[in-house]
């Protein structure tokens, strides 16, 4: 549930903007680090969670400026920002590679004190955040600006011909997406009880895995459906991971497992085409196969 907020962020860049954004790996830790440090200093956990959002947005802004103003290719801009964030995140965590939240009040504490189990509290709060993220993103894409952003991701040339400042649209998309990803990082770290510099590794791949699962299993024709599919895709992904761990796979092999899954899922549509029996089942809302 907590990861689904990140999946929506990944969806915004990968699907809508057509640009896989590696900033995610750094901004998820940034969100965690900012919140963890505030909470560890005795700050209000809700404010700490909110603080993660502008932090992530700033990271997105930097990637966006690198990409659009300095004309660095999108993938590389993301990598640069991600690497820079590694150092910044350690600085945020006051020079440490991790920050523990042991016995600190987190956003979950209040719910647990009402007698709910830890998992139940996580589920409820995660559902609320996911619903909020889906609503905000859906509404944003429905606005004049949001429409222009979607057009930019779909057909840059056309957007320009219709007077859209496409650079601005790209930056805006990256800003919002990384804000969400940082929020997700903040929630995850509070759930885990610590923030760690390593926790972002492979985040983009996890996001993609959830995204693909969501599209294959749940996506429908409408945009709203596609966003909700991201939430369920994340859930199924977590569930699958829990299963393979249960089945005895060493936790250190998880990343390999995820990478292989994503590689297969991404190549499947092409392989299908080659075999000439594309059944048109994988058509997402953009009409891509």
């Amino acid at each position, binding site marked *: 549930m907590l990861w689904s907020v990140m999946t929506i962020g990944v969806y915004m860049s990968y699907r809508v903007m057509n640009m896989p954004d590696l900033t995610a790996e750094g901004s998820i830790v940034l969100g965690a680090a900012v919140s963890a440090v505030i909470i560890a200093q005795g700050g209000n956990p809700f404010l700490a969670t909110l603080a993660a959002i502008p932090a992530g947005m700033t990271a997105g802004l930097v990637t966006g400026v690198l990409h659009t103003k300095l004309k660095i290719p999108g993938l590389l801009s993301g990598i640069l920002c991600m690497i820079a964030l590694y150092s910044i995140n350690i600085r945020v965590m006051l020079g440490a590679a991790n920050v523990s939240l042991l016995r600190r009040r987190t956003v979950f504490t209040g719910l647990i004190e009402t007698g709910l189990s830890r998992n139940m509290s996580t589920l409820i709060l995660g559902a609320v955040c996911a619903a909020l993220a889906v609503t905000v993103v859906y509404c944003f894409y429905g606005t*004049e600006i949001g*429409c222009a952003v979607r057009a930019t991701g779909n057909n840059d040339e056309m957007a320009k*011909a219709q007077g859209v400042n496409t650079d601005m649209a790209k930056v805006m998309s990256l800003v919002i997406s990384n804000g969400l990803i940082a929020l997700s990082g903040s929630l995850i770290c509070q759930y885990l009880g610590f923030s760690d510099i390593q926790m972002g590794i492979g985040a983009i791949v996890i996001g993609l895995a959830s995204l693909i699962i969501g599209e294959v299993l749940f996506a429908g024709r409408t945009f709203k459906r596609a966003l909700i599919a991201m939430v369920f895709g994340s859930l199924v992904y977590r569930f699958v991971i829990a299963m393979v761990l249960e089945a005895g796979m060493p936790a250190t092999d998880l990343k390999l497992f995820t990478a292989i899954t994503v590689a297969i899922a991404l190549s499947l549509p092409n392989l299908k085409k080659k075999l000439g029996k594309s059944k048109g089942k994988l058509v997402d809302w953009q*009409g891509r196969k």
Partner: protein
Amino acid sequence: MLKVDNVTKIWGAGTADENTAVDALTLNLEEGDFITVVGGNGSGKSTTLNAIAGTFPVDAGKIWINGIDVTKHPSYKRAKLIGRVFQDPLMGSAASLEIQENLALASRRGKRRSLRWGINKKERERYRDLLSILGLGLEDRMSDKVGLLSGGQRQALTLVMATLKAPKLLLLDEHTAALDPKTAAKVLEITETIIKKNRFTTLMVTHNMKDAISLGNRLIMMSEGKIVYEAEGGAKQRLTPGEMVDRFAMG
């Protein structure tokens, strides 16, 4: 309305493949002019139109539209003044957006976009009326994704999008070239109707000599980035396609 003053565009300047696509070209369009542009492949027609639209910066010269020097403006800013339809039917509309969303996007060309909802009920009705004029049945498919349309339908839609917000200048680059003859004729007919009705100032590139002669009030022929022949009014109407091909051969 449009003033192209000594514009030059050199591709790959300073390399072995240096290619002067537009060579000190000067062109003036009065308000309501409808000019057809002909010329062989690679003669610089598209480059000229793209230079006017601001797809890339030019190497020399100046461009004025409606009295504004737009030479340094990026293309999205010039879009305020320009409506475009491209040769490739996929270029002019966004496949993953609905027909009505594409139109809503176009109706806000040149306006500041806000966080207001991207489309409202009143404009939907207006789009329905506009689409029904095309006679392609698109008015009943307004919430279909544009990706589901045929090339001809998309081109007709792009034409509506380009003219929805009355442009100061309409640029059509072989916009019927990718369509089958029947659809091409239909789209051309729609084009003519729209331009005549609104008296849009237009530059239309075509390879069809008959169309180039019969449409518009002026014709220019390009070769190697220059205008090599011009005809206007009655002289233009009296041209024959055969004569044109001969002139082509002369370069």
